[in-house]
């Protein structure tokens, strides 16, 4: 178990190092523009999976938590010119609280009611922001980027590295939860909540924990958005596409292991970026839909599930009769 741990952290450090080197070496801004989006989805997909994959409670309101994170940054920038780190930390706390609150109101009910409630949360917060003039209301708000911090020569590149750090952080959190008794309890809840209760699994507490952590990570992913875009408006920030993608990516990659959402996000995110640039930006939504349906029907265990099946087929073929 310890060897696996070392391998993970070595890999994580290497990934960050690679991101930094790329930021210092590659000139074409587009790669970082697109790469930021892919990494953002790694965080969102990983965050979603903590509640949706591990516990089986499907959240349709990722856009709400993401949007709350983004608008927390807007408020902090406008009011205090707060540095990025403060924006991210505050966004995580507020979105975490939102997760906790949503959970408290709905997690006493079984799965499907929670899912319906999360749709409502997204709509509620979008409406709130639309009516809040301080953050620009429906028109949105334009923000000036502060001077870039050395050694990066562009703000986008710096944000790319920040998002890489967030991605590694999110995956580390998911990995820790998955291997701990918390993860065991969440898996029990997913498989049979009643049985879990009988065995003394504190189901409500664990669900609230997962909801809070998931929300916090989604908020953290949203925090750098205003600076990334220099312009934020509610319709695109609270967009359903974030909710759908955050759900589709873990399903495509595989929901039972932290690697699944990463694979799904990198794969789907990259395909979406390519389609947006080469064919059309409308079509990229179609891509998500088609892949999602395909995987749910043909490979509900996702890519990781397919790999596992291949492995077991191969090993049983090799084993002596």
């Amino acid at each position, binding site marked *: 178990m310890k060897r696996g741990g070392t391998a993970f952290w070595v890999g994580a450090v290497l990934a960050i190092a690679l991101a930094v080197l790329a930021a210092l070496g590659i000139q074409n801004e587009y790669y970082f523009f697109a790469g930021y989006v892919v990494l953002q989805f790694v965080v969102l997909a990983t965050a979603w999976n903590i509640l949706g994959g591990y516990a089986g409670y499907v959240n349709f309101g990722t856009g709400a938590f993401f949007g709350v994170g983004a608008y927390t940054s807007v408020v902090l920038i406008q009011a205090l010119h707060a540095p990025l780190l403060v924006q991210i930390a505050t966004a995580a706390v507020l979105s975490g609280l939102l997760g906790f609150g949503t959970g408290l109101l709905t997690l006493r009910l079984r799965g499907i009611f929670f899912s319906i409630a999360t749709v409502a949360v997204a709509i509620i917060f979008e409406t709130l922001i639309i009516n809040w003039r301080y953050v620009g209301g429906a028109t949105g708000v334009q923000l000036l980027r502060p001077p870039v911090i050395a050694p990066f020569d562009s703000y986008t590149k710096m944000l790319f590295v920040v998002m890489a750090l967030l991605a590694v952080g999110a995956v580390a959190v998911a990995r820790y939860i998955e291997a701990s008794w918390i993860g065991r*309890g969440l*898996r*029990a809840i997913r498989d049979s909540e*009643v*049985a879990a*209760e*009988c*065995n*003394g*699994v504190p189901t409500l507490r664990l669900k609230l924990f997962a909801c809070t952590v998931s929300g916090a990570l989604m908020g953290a992913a949203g925090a750098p958005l205003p600076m990334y875009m220099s312009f934020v408006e509610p319709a695109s920030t609270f967009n359903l596409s974030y909710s759908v993608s955050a759900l589709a990516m873990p399903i495509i990659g595989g929901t039972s292991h932290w690697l699944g959402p990463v694979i799904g996000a990198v794969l789907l995110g990259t395909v979406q970026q390519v389609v947006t640039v080469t064919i059309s930006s409308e079509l990229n939504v179609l891509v998500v839909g088609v892949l999602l349906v395909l995987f749910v029907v043909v490979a509900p265990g996702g890519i990781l599930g397919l790999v596992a099946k291949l492995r077991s087929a191969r090993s049983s073929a090799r084993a002596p009769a």
Partner: protein
Amino acid sequence: MALKLSVRNVEAGYGAVRALHRVSLELKQGETVALLGTNGNGKSTLMKCLMGMVRPTRGEITLDIDGRSLDLARMQTEEIVSLGMAMVPEGRRLFPKLTVEENLQLGAFRPVARGKLVKNLDFCYENFSVLKDRRRQLAGSLSGGQQQMLAIARALMSAPRILLVDEPSVGLSPLLVHHTVSMIQQLKDGFDLTVLMAEQNFQQAIRIADRGYIIVHGEIVFEGRTADELWNNELVRSLYLGG
């Protein structure tokens, strides 16, 4: 160390449906008590009340243990399990997509039981060799009898002092029912347990019981202070044999 579970005038239900009416019973240390009743008469509801999964609207449930007197009606299920009460639920309620071993590990979820996980797992495998052979098999793919065994073993993983068994005979062949009930008695003796067993199969339940109650439409209609008293009661004959 006097262990006693007292239920006094408990009323409980699901929304507008009243399932229990002024139910009182007692469980004393070292006893095997049978709770006899046919389908839909409140046995499972009572078990759930004892485990904190259903809140009684009236009445008291008190556990006297280690010198303390605790109100179970106000506690969370996880706290009740930590105290030393375990339930083998109706219909087994296993984790079908998890392996036998993962099911057993989850039985020891409470922090107090985690430290003894390995020891208790070894105990379980010693007493249930069938489970040991199938430790990596998915629980949902086991046969009915194996599943019942797993459900009981899982309940024992928390090293309980009181074991609530809810209708262990459901879905099992007569031979397996006999075997399962005998196993419960053996485990009770071997692990120094106190057992409350809800059953429809009156004959099998009375076979291992020290005494018992009969529940009809959510009310305790008879208390048998010995197994014989239970068996010879008119109600048992009419309910069980239809005479």
